[in-house]
């Protein structure tokens, strides 16, 4: 086992210039869009940005859900792992989508519909978790 690399907070080595990710089934509600660029926008740490190649109007702000819920886990079925070509857990990048309302302090992230991306095969998929497990609208900022 190699030790976990320690990354300075202003870089994401796994996404130096972004990666092209294919979602064979699209995202729910956007099933026709399958090709996306995932990158960390300039001054965007700790967020990532998922931009459709096919429709410039479709993009998503993504966050590492562990920053919101420390014990967050996605139970993958064997079928889902196979569809992603996942062989090792460290190949899986887990992101959740951020919804930013008019008052951005009220932003939430959808923990019930995470994206799993195999960074090795660059195939992604939106997983549907049972709504009892994780909330659809989990507040990101602690409310005063």
């Amino acid at each position: 086992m190699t030790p976990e690399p320690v990354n300075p907070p202003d870089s994401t080595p796994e996404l130096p210039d972004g990666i092209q990710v294919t979602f064979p089934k699209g995202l729910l509600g956007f099933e026709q869009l399958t090709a996306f660029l995932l990158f960390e926008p300039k001054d965007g740490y700790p967020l990532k940005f998922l931009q459709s190649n096919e429709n410039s109007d479709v993009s998503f702000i993504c966050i590492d859900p562990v920053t919101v819920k420390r014990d967050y886990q996605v139970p993958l079925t064997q079928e889902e792992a196979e569809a992603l070509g996942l062989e090792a857990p460290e190949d899986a990048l887990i992101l959740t989508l951020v919804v930013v309302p008019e008052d951005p302090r009220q932003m939430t992230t959808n923990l019930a519909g995470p994206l799993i991306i195999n960074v090795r095969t660059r195939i992604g998929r939106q997983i549907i978790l049972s709504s009892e497990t994780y909330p659809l609208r989990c507040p990101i900022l602690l409310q005063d």
Partner: protein
Amino acid sequence: MLVITRKPEQSIVIGGEVEVIVLGITKDGVRLGIKAPRTVEVHRREVFEAIAAENRAATASKVPVQDVAALLRAAQVRKPHTR
């Protein structure tokens, strides 16, 4: 749409490998059992629609990602004091 009347414990088979069984009927609803291969995803429609609605809401952000990120970074610095 195909409409079929089924009684409790009766079932229908879809595509040869998916079976939907009526387990029971009460005044609150119908209990269904679904036998399907692992490759077939089975979800309540509301769950699908709720996630699709959140996806659509997520694309509608008018706030630049840098502004959102700045809010988050500021909050992270504050966290140790608020907890």
